[in-house]
Every structure is written in C-alpha cells, then in structure tokens.
C-alpha cells in the first residue's frame, strides 16, 4: 500500500483565477526520499501544504480529488493526529521557533508537551534527538538568540523528537550559508537512514541528485515528470522547462554527445569519479 497517494488532485486558492495544482496523481512509498523540484511559483509549496493537511483546512479554497495518508483520506484526519504523523519543516528558520521557551531543550520538548507525552519520556526523547543532531552545546541557549542555521537545526530537532513517520521539508536551506546547508543535509541523510519517508523541496539540485531516490518536477501546478533520480536528470530537455540539471549530469551528457559516454549516466560527483577512474584504468590496461 502507498504511504501517501494523490488521485486527480486539483486545488485553487480562494479568490484565485487559476488552479495552483492541476490533476495530480502520484503514490509515495514508505522509506523513500522524494525530491520535489521546479520553478519558483510553480506549486511546490502548495503541494507540501496539501500533504501536510493545511489545504484546505487552513488556507481554504477548492480542493478536488483525493489525498490518502496511510490509507485514510486527508479530510478525515484530525489535526493533532496528522501532526504526530507528518512533520513539517519550512524555509524560514526565524518563524519556526515558538518564541515562548527559554532554552533549546524546552523548545524541542514543546511538540511533545502538546501531544501529552509524559515528562520522563519527553526528557529521554529530547536527549536522543539532541545527540543525534549533535546540538548538545545548544541545549541551554535561548532559542531566540540563535543564528539562522542553528534555529533550523533546532526546528528539525523539534520535529524529529515527535517521531513522525513522514517528513515534509520545504526549502530548508534557502536562507542558510554553505555550512548551515551542509549541516541540514547531514540531518536529512540521517533521517533517510532511519527509514523516514521524506518529501524534500529544494533548489540545490546537486544535493537532490545526491540524496533523493525519486524526483518529481512540478511546473505551473502540473506534475510534468517524475521517476528515479538518475532517470529524471538524464533528460537534459528539462532545462527547457526551467529546471536546473546537476552539473555532473550535464557533464555526462557532454561526454555522450562527444561519443565517449560513461557506462552508466552519472548524476553525482561520486558516480562520475567512479566512471572516470574506471575509464582511466581501462585506458592504462589497453
């Protein structure tokens, strides 16, 4: 059974003249990391809001079609049950901090307090997540005084502590520096290893190529292509759709056009390195 399934889903915001999402059909499987890419304003965040249950309950508007989360239609989910099933992290690190807690430890515990988890379990879960994300040095700090990167890590910790099966992550690194970005992707990698189902919206296409199992390309509210990450990025025509292609995929394509293709189409640096080393050793042997 699919973990999340969309059937003929269209959505229009209140007062809008056009649909923000158009007839989307897709089934997400458990334990995979899905990269969602496309132009700005194409509907990626709307797509995330839909999966998170914010559409139509929070934003209003017209939703047609069906969205199933773990086999249950999204309109039938209670808000709190959905919050303990789907975690949501978005781009602005400054608005994801509650602002009402005095320490990072208490901030991470907030979601668990709301779920009614007992104190000892809260403490255990927060300690675990703090260790996992290597933010022990931050626990005593005031969350309102942290940098953007630190706040984003605390936002991740707060959601991970709630132990949701599904994570919707919307451009988590758009406001972060390279170090902050690298820290966040380390966390995403960890979550993937833990078997979480992750929907990740991200413009840093090389990182999507590195981590995503499958990619969905959304343009003007439509799902224009999807499939295995290597298959999607091997189609350089995507550039015409306003979608970036990883530099390594462009290199692979250039090699192909020069009549010297890699044995398998590389989309990440490690894949390309492997291919180049292989070709180099073959040349030496001959």
């Amino acid at each position, binding site marked *: 059974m699919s973990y999340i399934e969309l059937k003929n889903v269209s959505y229009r915001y209140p007062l809008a003249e056009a649909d923000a999402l158009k007839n989307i059909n897709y089934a997400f499987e458990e334990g995979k990391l899905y990269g969602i890419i496309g132009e700005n304003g194409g509907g990626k965040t709307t797509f995330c809001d839909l999966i*998170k249950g*914010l559409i139509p309950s*929070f934003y209003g508007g017209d939703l047609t079609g069906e969205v199933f989360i773990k086999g249950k239609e999204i309109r039938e989910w*209670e*808000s*709190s049950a959905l*919050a*303990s099933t789907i*975690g*949501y*992290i*978005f781009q*602005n690190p*400054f*608005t*994801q*901090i*509650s*602002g*009402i*807690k*005095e320490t990072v*430890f*208490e901030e991470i*515990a*907030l*979601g*668990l*307090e*709301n*779920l*009614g*988890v*007992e*104190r*000892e379990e*809260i*403490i255990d879960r927060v*300690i675990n997540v*703090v*260790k996992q994300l290597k933010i*022990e040095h931050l*626990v*005593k700090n005031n969350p*309102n005084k942290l940098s953007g990167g630190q706040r984003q890590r605390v*936002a991740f910790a*707060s*959601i991970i502590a*709630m132990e949701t099966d599904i994570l919707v992550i919307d451009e988590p690194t758009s406001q972060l520096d390279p170090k902050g970005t690298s820290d966040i992707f380390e966390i995403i990698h960890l979550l993937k290893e833990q078997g979480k189902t992750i929907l990740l919206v991200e413009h840093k296409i090389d990182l999507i190529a590195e981590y995503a199992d499958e990619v969905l390309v959304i343009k003007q509210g439509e799902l224009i292509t999807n499939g295995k990450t290597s298959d999607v990025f091997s189609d350089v025509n995507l550039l015409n759709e306003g979608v970036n292609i990883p530099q390594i995929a462009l290199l692979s394509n250039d090699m192909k056009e020069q009549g010297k293709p890699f044995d398998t189409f590389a989309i990440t640096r490690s894949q390309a390195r492997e291919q180049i080393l292989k070709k180099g050793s073959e040349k030496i042997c001959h």
Partner: protein
Amino acid sequence: MMDETFINSYRSPQLSKNWLLNLNPLNKINIYIALGLITLFFQHWQVNVVITLVFILLAVAAGCFKSFIGPFLKLGLVIGPFFFIVRAIFWPGENMIFNYGIINITQEGIDLGIQYATIMLVVCGILVLCTVTIKAEDLTYSLEKIGVPHNVSFMILSSLQLIIDLKDKTKVIMDSQRSRGIETEGNVFVRIKAFVPVLSPLFLGAISGAEEKTIAMDARAFSSANPNTHLRFLRPTPALEKILVILVDILILGLIILGVVL
C-alpha cells in the same frame, strides 16, 4: 556531553534559592496588587511613597534590585512627572499660585498632581516587579493549573515575546536604513522622520510572520485535543505560603477599611 545537572533540573520543581522568587506567580501578583490597592483608599501621597518603598524593598529581598531599579526609574520618571504636570497646570482650585492663559496652577492642582504622580510610581512598581520576579512561563503554568486554556496562556507568552521581537526587528530595519545613508540619529524630529518609514515593513513583516508561526505551531501539534503536559513545573503551593498570602490580604483589607473609616 550534556550537563546532567541541567537535565535533572527538569525532573524537579523549578526553584531558586530565594523565598520570594519561589512564591507561586499568582500569589506574588496577589500581594503586589493588594499592596497597590491601598493607594486607592488612602488619599495621601505619603502612603503611596511608602508603598513604592515597600516595592523597592521587595525587589531587594528578591535579589532583583539591579534589574528592578533601572526600568522602574525610566518608567516612573516619564509617567509620574507627566501626570503631575497635567494635573498641576490644568486643575481648577481656589488657591491660585500662577495663571497665564490656559495655564492655571493652583495649590489643589499641585496636591492632586503629587497624589497622581505617586500613584503612578506604585503602578510602575507593580509592573516592573512583576516582570523581574515572575517568569512568563511560570505564570502561564500557574494559570493553566487553575483552568486557563492552553491557547490563552500561549497567547500571553507569545504577546510578550512579540514585544521583544518587534523591538529587535525595528533595530534591524533602522540599521539597514542607516547603512543606506538615511539619517536616524539626531533631534526628536529627525528620529520621528526616520521611524515612520519603519512602521510598514515592521508590521507587514509581523503579519506574514504570524501566518508562518501558526503553521509552525500546527506542526508542533498545538491544536492537539490531548491534555498537554509540562516539562518545566512548579511545586504545589506550600500551606505556609497560602497562610502568608491570606494574612497579607487580611492585613491589607484591614488597612483599607481603616483608611475608608478614617
């Protein structure tokens, strides 16, 4: 390696070494307001000054004198003189001291001005003492324990935080304006001229931030129907503390009755 003492601090009630700080927040508010009420029934500025001194002594007893006195003086020295001036120069009376146009200084006006100014000192004392001796989170915990809904306590806490956030954002916007060469320092007119354009980005930013914060809180199961738990908690109010508060209330009630009778 995490600090075990810090972690263990969540396993026991939040207590400090100071008896006054350890009082239940609602009991502290009860005592401060009860003291403040005396001013309404004794129409003597000397009583107001004594109560103000009591607040200063309470701040000393709580070990918060330094954090109390600065804001208290800043607030008191603005509001107190303002009320004095308004009453002193406009209040009609028989014992005229000075008269010019609409300015009408009378002995009665000066007496009333002193009375109002010292009442304002008492009000400032209550407000500042509350802020330095009560942690907002402890207050909302106590409120929730007496049945105030969780979302109301969140509103109180986030409103208090909003003031700090807006102040910080104002500073950021002013700094960015200064970096673009806009004059933000100088006399009152220059400052007002620089401050007005700050208002729209400040409040529009706050409105858009509010929507995102709502979503962030939704992601933290804020709307959960389950009864919420608390990581930080306070001790149950000791019997001695209850007796103390009742005695203070009775004493103040007695003083008020005395004031009314006299």
